[in-house]
């Protein structure tokens, strides 16, 4: 693992692909923040695997120079875990939208968290389905009018922050591209955290999003948790703050486990090392089927 800060500039992580995002999309800011965070981390692009699902935001791996995998809808986390467990030495990032992570792929999140695979999961939460042009998403607020809820949504949204805190994640943060340095900072902290780390990014949809949930309003209304005297080592305090999701925009670290749990990938490496020391030859594998009787 080579981590020499300043070894890579942020631009070293920017690919030549031109994003398909609409001008003004929050995701432009997210990818910039990721470039900055990766530059601060200092791992070369070929040691990074960046996995995503399907959606506007899931195009993001292609805009980096890392090994990217733009997979299928909702399944980025299982695929990312396979990568990390196969090659624990890699830095593995996962990204997607709120639909990818909390609707079609919602069942995978608690398991990635409870295994505590050392992944950084960045959700670009815009409360709408943008790629399919404006349908209700799992984080759309009650009452939201959309093309699939023309009379207003009659269901409550999920609370991604509260869910992931309750699942037991060791690192939970939120950011917005309205505060680029704050966003790059929480992403960098998430990557550095040893274990599953979750960053919810309020990344507005400029085309189908609500007028009152754009970067301008974020800038005016966001409250930094650090300024509120929040103690990020207290999970219950974090959950109390997370309750305000949808009513207030808190940025920064909600929770960072002061005594991180052991990671699954580290346990895998240890077990492999311990058990493979007495490795028999793969070519002798049929020996186990010899009957154990004298005859």
């Amino acid at each position, binding site marked *: 693992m080579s981590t020499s800060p300043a070894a890579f500039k942020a631009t070293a992580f920017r690919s030549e692909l031109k994003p398909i995002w609409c001008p003004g999309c929050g995701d432009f800011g997210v990818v910039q923040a990721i470039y900055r965070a990766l530059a601060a981390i200092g791992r070369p692009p*070929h040691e990074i695997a960046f996995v995503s699902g399907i959606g506007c935001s899931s195009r993001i791996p292609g805009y980096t120079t890392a090994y990217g995998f733009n997979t299928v809808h909702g399944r980025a986390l299982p695929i990312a875990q*396979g990568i990390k467990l196969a090659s624990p030495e890699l830095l593995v990032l996962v990204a997607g939208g709120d639909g990818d992570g909390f609707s079609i792929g919602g069942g995978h999140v608690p398991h990635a968290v409870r295994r505590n695979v050392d992944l950084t999961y960045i959700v670009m939460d815009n409360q709408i389905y943008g790629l399919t042009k404006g349908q209700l998403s799992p984080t759309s607020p009650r009452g939201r009018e959309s093309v699939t809820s023309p009379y207003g949504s009659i269901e409550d949204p999920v609370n991604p922050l509260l869910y992931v805190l309750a699942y037991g994640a060791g690192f939970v943060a939120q950011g917005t591209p309205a505060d680029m340095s704050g966003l790059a900072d929480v992403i960098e902290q998430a990557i550095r955290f040893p274990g599953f780390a979750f960053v919810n990014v309020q990344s507005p949809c400029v085309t189908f999003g609500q007028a009152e949930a754009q970067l301008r309003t974020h800038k005016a209304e966001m409250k930094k948790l650090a300024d509120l005297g929040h103690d990020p080592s207290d999970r219950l305090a974090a959950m109390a703050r997370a309750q305000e999701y949808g009513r207030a925009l808190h940025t920064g670290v909600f929770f960072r486990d002061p005594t991180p749990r052991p990671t699954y990938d580290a346990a895998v490496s240890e077990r492999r090392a311990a058990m493979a020391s007495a*490795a028999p030859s793969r070519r002798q594998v049929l020996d186990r089927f010899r*009957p154990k009787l004298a005859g």
Partner: protein
Amino acid sequence: MNSDLVIGMAGAGGDGVVSAGESLMAAAAAMGYHAILTKSFGPQIRGGESSCRLRLSTGPVLNPGAPLDVAVALNWDDFLRFGAELPVGGRTLVLYESASGVAPDHLPLAGVVPAEALPVPVGALAREAAGTEKAKNTVVLGLLAGWLGLPPEAILDGVRRKLARKGAEVLAGSERAFAAGLAYAGAHPTRETRHLAPLARGTAAKLLADGNEMCAAAAIFAGCEFFGGYPITPSTEIMQALARDLWRYGGTVLQAEDEIAGLGAVVGASFAGKKAMTATSGPGMSLKTEMLGLATIAELPLVCVNVQRGGPSTGIPTKSEQSDLFQAVFSAHGDVVRPVLAPTSVADTFVVTVEAFNIAEQYQTPVVVLSDQEIAQRKETVDPIDTSRLTVVERLRPTAGELEDYARFRLTDDGISPISHPGMPGGNYLAAGIEHNEQGAPTASGEMHARMNEKRLRKLDPLKERADLFEVEGPADAPLGLVAWGSLAGTAREARRRAAAEGLRVKLLVPRLLYPVSEAAYDGFFRSVQRGLVVEQSHQGQLFRLLRMFVDVPRGVERLCRSGANPVRPDEVLGRLRQMAMALQRVREAELQPQE
């Protein structure tokens, strides 16, 4: 003397008939006999009825055999629940618990009078010898050792091994129970001898395995480094065996939260450069379909084993069927050709699974292995496999030169593009389920899409030329032809050999490669065929229908197929072959008649 014996046993869950069958088989394998053991259980989680069928032979055994030479009914209700799985015939020796009060001439068997019926006080012998009815199965072993003429020491050795942890008292009781059974058999000789012919001196011991264990061993042999899966009957033993063994070889096993995640992790591991596998059954295959499509377009090697059971939906989880062929071949959106292989026996499961890894790695594609419950969960003796003759293929990596201007999906002559993986400097690329150009960049170009589709299909063409994946036995110019796959291949092999012994000119084709369909292999086979059968364990006859999609199947070739949990028997195949031979004869005679 008998060179071949089929023994069927049934009892209540705690009676231990399966355990008795296993002991008998272990002894037979150690002596060098050939054997197949199938087990069958009621749907209860614990307890309920259980049965096993053991075929012992001095020569290779091709299928579990039917009808029974020896039937053991510890309990008639339980025995009868297995119906066609334990077929009693006119030559069967039936031994049963005399406490059932059933008279030997009033057995509860419909429409069949067995050769001999022996009521035995099994429970009483067990209580007397060991003080518990738990020793009933050991009494049965003693009875069978006596009546089959098997060396008692070899069987007792296995019993001792099994009971080693239960303490000296249990062990001594069991030895007395065995001796009581043996003595009873000695005092009550059967009318007709049921002795199994002895083997030539120096016959080598056989290996003993079931199909699922063999599949796991093959994965290890082939270099598998990652397994991700979700428990599902009847494939779970593959994951269990790898969870026990793969770590020792530096690999990793993940029990995922669901079927989708299981294959997802495998896709990830393959992207990371490792050989990877999952195993499942029909309902899991349904869930894995999308992930298989991803592996196809991202050109990632992986092996997906489907141990088939009765379907659709939950179907009959514990019984064999061959009804997932259409699913294996066609369950994909888009223009997909996904190789599908099928093993025909426990031993074959090793070779076919290794081949599946090789094809996956060579052609950068997911490969489906269609096993079935019959092969997967039956125990079979296996002749030593010469693994030095098997090759292990690795995926094509980019050279240093190719990495200078790397294009992951380069359109090469053979359609195979060198594949990098995270950690490899200079190989960075974007893998995706989205259509892409040679560099991996997303594209919506119809022209590029057509070229990539063409590449992904063309690279698999050489598979159709793999004559070694098609086994033909019998005279090349035979007018009668059989086609069978998976566990039914053994049934067809036995039927063909018996038909040939009767003088019928019949040949058999067994495909290991089911898809892509090799037109050449079938055209060559069918050239001489006027009448024939495609033998399958599915209601529709899925291979028959698949062949008719790609091949000119002669009009005289029909299906012999039915739903699972009711195995097609060799004598049924033989009967149909005889009818077909007679029909051919009539046609020939009619042709020879002078025209009026």
